[in-house]
């Protein structure tokens, strides 16, 4: 909200040091978002008086003048010194009061005033015309000011344009600060200063016209639902002349960025900004029926009801909106948000119906949101307008309308206030207890009782002695809907007492230790392992394209339904991801398109599976990674191999080791089982019977669908499954003390025989003495080995834990192993 300090200072002393004032505002809860000095463009421009005027020695049309600028120019002796200025205007004489732009001024059009010489005569500034100052179109000569104009006054001050306007962030709990008067109260509480509320004097000025038709016989008000409209008041002002506002009124509104419209509308805006009361002025004659009666009905809008609002927009209303209506015309205004075009005040208007009311906060806020129509009124109603004292604020408005438009305020027969007032729901007054020891205990500081009382009173509370000397009885003001509970008062006292005065401490408390959960510790291991494998952690969007799984060719089996956003930012991000891989593929593509060919990424993040009939989706955390290119570019001493299936598998093997996953198996996945993977380079990962996830090379078509270059090796694991399978530690195995014997053997087998099968055979045949079998070569050669055959060479390590093996023992075991493997797999030993 914009606050003019000039306006504010009518009600309270405003601190001179703006910087310090802003700091204090910031600390006490009113954020300062901007400070604007409206007189800045008149910097170095002052009122002046012509002392002498002589013909320029070298020109017929130029004058050499000396100009008194008072203290705006001081000589070396510290005394005011007139300026010599060469001037081309013809409309002035010595003794005239004028406006002078001194050296350093900048006139509109970025025209900088400098010391200059005009035909050899020094000129220390410029005497200005109204047009040169941007103050009008008059350029017949320089501006001549009245004879009583002061000399040497900054032009901004002389014109009254010297104002500072603060742009304030008022928190949503403080509707009272959305007005100059309310803000004056806040400043008073901030500095312990007294202030004057303007509403009383203004309301007192209202005079009632007892000759006119009484307002209560002419206007009837019906409120359908007091929850929607707790209070509605109307006044009638007759005989108004709609015209431009007087200067002072227009200036006030202009200063805070409001465009003056006419005297009636400007007064309603003025009261809104001054007192925080939204008002609406209707053209009374457009509301009345054939008998000259106006029947105002506040009711729910009908579904589909139409209203053209003041901004000229045709609005279609819904039943949760509230309207002001008459039986004849239907809706004439959108309650609390905006008036209707039909009944607005125009130049022809003479009789006015002035509405001052309160409307339900929530509904007003929803209405303005749903229509995309946020007005100064709706902004205040959605935060809460005090239903108490509306009559007073309406009287202040009526008096001012009468004053600026020449109208008269109609009297009423039922009261002496000239008002029709329906107030069916009165907001409660809160009587609160303030326990001083509890407050001080919770803040952690001893705040003196007298300071507490002073702060509360200045905020508008009534404070009296409580039940005992440690308590206060506080009546919260109704304009502070946020003060309903004792704690609300604590906040007020703390912020104005000063949070900076509270000494910092750390919580005590015995028996408290910080622990990490098992899942987090396992996650640390996972992160550390993946990084040690050379993968870089990234984060991608949790949002996904609805077509992502289809693009990826990934089966939706077991992934539930996608979580669909009702209001996505765009179609590409309209569901929540069911797999992390599409996001990672987008990053692979991003990198490849930016010339980065070697990509090693992983992400640990949530995926979402919805199900029909279930409110919230299932969330599962996944560990996913992608590898494209190689681990690095070739260097002088190393050439990293291009990534393939086995790089992905190696990462998983490291994870399995670090997490102590028992009985890890890689089971080949068929094209049907994993359509997103390249058949033959795809495996499911199991630990015991638990499926952990998959690893493989993504299907070239899937990679292409994401505009990336294949091959891309990927894996996606379920975090919960990893954590569950992970054992607390690997068991200790004795370090061998007896020597081992290594025997190499190459088996020629059919292509279909897997390494896993070979290992199973060898370990069952080798028994206890076989310590390790390491595959060191796989060799294919049709001529030598035959078609569909491969040679698998293993280094077999034999060792006994309790003795040195004899060569006979080794030979016997090895022979038996070879025989069994050959028998079980059809292998032949390669010679």
């Amino acid at each position, binding site marked *: 909200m914009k606050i003019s300090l000039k306006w504010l200072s009518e009600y309270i002393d405003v601190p001179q040091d703006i910087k310090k004032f802003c700091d204090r505002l*910031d*600390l006490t809860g009113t*954020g300062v978002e901007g400070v604007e000095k409206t007189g800045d463009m008149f910097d170095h421009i002052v009122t002046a008086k012509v002392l002498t005027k002589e013909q320029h020695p070298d020109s017929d049309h130029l004058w050499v003048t000396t100009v008194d600028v008072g203290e705006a120019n001081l000589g070396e002796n510290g005394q005011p010194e007139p300026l010599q200025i060469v001037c081309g205007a013809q409309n002035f004489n010595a003794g005239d009061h004028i406006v002078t732009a001194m050296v350093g001024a900048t006139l509109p059009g970025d025209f900088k005033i400098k010391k200059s010489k005009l035909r050899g005569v020094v000129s220390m500034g410029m005497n200005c015309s109204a047009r040169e100052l941007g103050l009008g179109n008059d350029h017949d000569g320089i501006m001549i000011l009245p004879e009583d104009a002061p000399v040497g006054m900054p032009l901004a001050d002389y014109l009254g344009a010297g104002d500072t306007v603060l742009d304030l962030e008022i*928190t949503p709990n*403080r509707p009272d600060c959305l007005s100059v008067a309310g803000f004056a109260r806040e400043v008073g509480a901030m500095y312990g200063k007294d202030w004057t509320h303007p509403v009383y004097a203004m309301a007192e000025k209202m005079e009632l016209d007892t000759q006119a038709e009484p307002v209560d016989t002419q206007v009837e008000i019906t409120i359908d639902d007091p929850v929607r409209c707790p209070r509605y008041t109307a006044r009638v002002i007759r005989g108004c002349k709609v015209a431009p506002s007087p200067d002072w009124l227009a200036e006030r509104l202009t200063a805070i960025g409001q465009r003056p419209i006419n005297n009636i509308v400007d007064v309603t805006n003025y009261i809104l900004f001054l007192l925080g009361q939204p008002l609406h002025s209707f053209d009374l004659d457009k509301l009345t029926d054939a008998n000259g009666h106006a029947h105002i009905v506040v009711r729910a809008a009908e579904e589909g009801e139409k209203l053209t609002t003041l901004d000229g927009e045709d609005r279609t209303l819904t039943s*949760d909106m509230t309207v002001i209506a008459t039986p004849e015309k239907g809706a004439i205004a959108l309650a609390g948000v905006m008036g209707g075009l039909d009944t607005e005040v125009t130049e022809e208007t003479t009789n006015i119906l002035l509405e001052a009311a309160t409307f339900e*906060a*929530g*509904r007003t806020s*929803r209405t303005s*949101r*749903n229509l995309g129509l946020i007005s100064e009124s709706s902004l205040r109603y959605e935060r809460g307008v005090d239903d108490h004292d509306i009559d007073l604020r309406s009287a202040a408005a009526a008096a001012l309308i009468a004053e600026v438009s020449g109208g008269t305020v109609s009297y009423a027969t039922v009261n002496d206030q000239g008002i029709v007032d329906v107030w069916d729901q009165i907001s409660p007054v809160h009587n609160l207890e303030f326990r001083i020891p509890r407050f001080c*205990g*919770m*803040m*952690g500081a001893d705040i003196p009782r007298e300071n507490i009382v002073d702060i509360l009173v200045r905020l508008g509370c009534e404070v009296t002695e409580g039940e005992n000397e440690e308590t206060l009885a506080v009546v919260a003001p109704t304009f502070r809907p946020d003060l309903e509970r004792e704690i609300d008062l604590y*906040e007020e006292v703390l912020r104005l007492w000063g*949070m*900076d005065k*509270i000494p*910092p401490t*750390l*919580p*005590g*408390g015995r028996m*408290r230790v*910080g622990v*990490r959960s098992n899942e987090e510790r396992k996650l640390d291991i996972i992160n550390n392992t*993946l*990084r*040690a*494998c*050379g993968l*870089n*952690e990234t*984060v*991608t*969007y*949790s*949002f996904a394209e609805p077509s992502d799984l289809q693009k990826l060719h990934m089966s939706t089996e077991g992934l539930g*339904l996608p*979580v669909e*956003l009702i*209001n*996505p*930012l765009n179609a590409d991000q309209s569901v*929540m991801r069911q797999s992390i891989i599409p996001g*990672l593929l987008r990053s692979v593509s991003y990198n490849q398109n*930016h010339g980065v060919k070697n990509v*090693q*990424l*992983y992400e640990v993040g*949530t995926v*979402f599976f919805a199900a029909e009939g*279930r*409110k*919230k*989706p299932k969330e599962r955390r996944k560990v996913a990674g992608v590898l494209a290119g190689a*681990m690095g570019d070739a260097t*002088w001493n190393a050439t990293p191999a291009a990534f393939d299936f086995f790089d992905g598998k190696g990462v998983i093997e490291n994870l399995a080791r670090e997490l102590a996953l028992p009985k890890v198996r890689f089971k080949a996945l068929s094209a049907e089982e994993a359509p997103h993977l390249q058949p033959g380079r795809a495996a499911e990962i199991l630990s015991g019977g638990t499926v952990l996830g998959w690893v493989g090379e993504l299907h070239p078509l899937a990679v292409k669908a994401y505009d990336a270059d294949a091959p891309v090796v990927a894996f996606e694991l379920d975090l919960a499954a990893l954590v569950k399978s992970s054992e607390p530690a690997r068991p200790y195995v004795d370090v061998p003390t007896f020597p081992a014997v290594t025997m190499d053997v190459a088996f020629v087998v059919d292509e279909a025989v897997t390494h896993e099968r070979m290992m199973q055979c060898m370990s069952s045949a080798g028994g206890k003495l076989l310590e390790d079998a390491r595959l060191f070569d796989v060799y294919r050669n049709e001529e030598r080995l035959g078609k569909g055959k491969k040679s698998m060479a293993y280094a077999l390590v034999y060792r006994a834990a309790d003795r040195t093996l004899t060569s006979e023992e080794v030979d016997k075991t090895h022979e038996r192993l070879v025989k069994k493997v050959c028998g079980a797999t059809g292998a032949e030993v390669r010679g």
Partner: protein
Amino acid sequence: MAITDELAALQESTLADIAKAENTEALDQVRVAVLGKAGTLTAYLRSMGQVPPEERAVVGKTVNATRVVVEDALASRKKELEAAELDAAISAAAVDVTLPGRAQQMGTRHLINRITDEICEVFLGLGYTVAYGPEVETDYYNFEALNAAADHPSRSMQDTFYVHDLSGDASKVRGESDVLLRTQTSGVQVHVMEDQELPIYIVAPGKVYRRDVADPSHLPQFNQIEGLVVDKNITFGDLKGTLDYVCKKIFGEERKTRFRAHYFPFTEPSAEVDVSCGICHGEGCRFCKGTGWLELLGCGMVDPNVLRMSGIDPEEYSGFAFGLGVERAACLKYNVPDLRMLLEGDMRFLRQF
């Protein structure tokens, strides 16, 4: 010629050969030729039986003496040659140490998680436990239980992502849903208060979502770290002391904090915390927009309504809560010019951290 003369000659020529040997290999050949199985000196030793008995003592002594001399000469020459050869090998093996090393590539932690780790680590040291909550929440946990008014503007479709409620329940507000992407990690507070024993000391890092179009300073998906303490006799001073300590640990001991009163529905009193600008140290510069301070987080004492809704008696217990934007902390620490880089997965960005 007498044998002793022969031996003297052999010794002389052998010593000359030893001195001439240019490397250990040549030296070994000399050794074998003289002392090997078929060596010249060995032959004398072998033929001692043929020497007449009266000369045997003298000859034997001479042969042995010759052997000692030869062996000594061999040993010392060997030492010399070995030293020279090692020197040669070492100088031949010298490399340009400025050539790149042979390193296994280490992966990197994402900047946001790196900072989250740092912050959680500080809180672990203060005796806090790390907690997590779901990213898709119900209105109750994201708003209602946190005291947000039913019509709070942050609930609007412009600010909050809503998801289709598949339970069949009708939404309270037209067009909205009871299910949404959490807009704050504060919902974890409620889960923890419902589920955990008192006292509570937790931090809850996690992703949150707001309906902001991605631009250099906004992301629709970002990260917060929520903190919650509920215990007996917790004071606003404790809140100040805790956050001051944490800011100093994260940004540096020389940094100051400042508490500005503010409003949040779920805390009262509420404050925003600024940390002094690390570039100008509070003087005011472009980075801090001339204020000397950088806005860091929101915090406050837990509102009694929030405690009560979770079944905690606010007369007996009090607490504080805070929420910190991790991206904000990242920007303050690293001056990242465009937040979107955090979600692009650009290797050139990721590998900086």
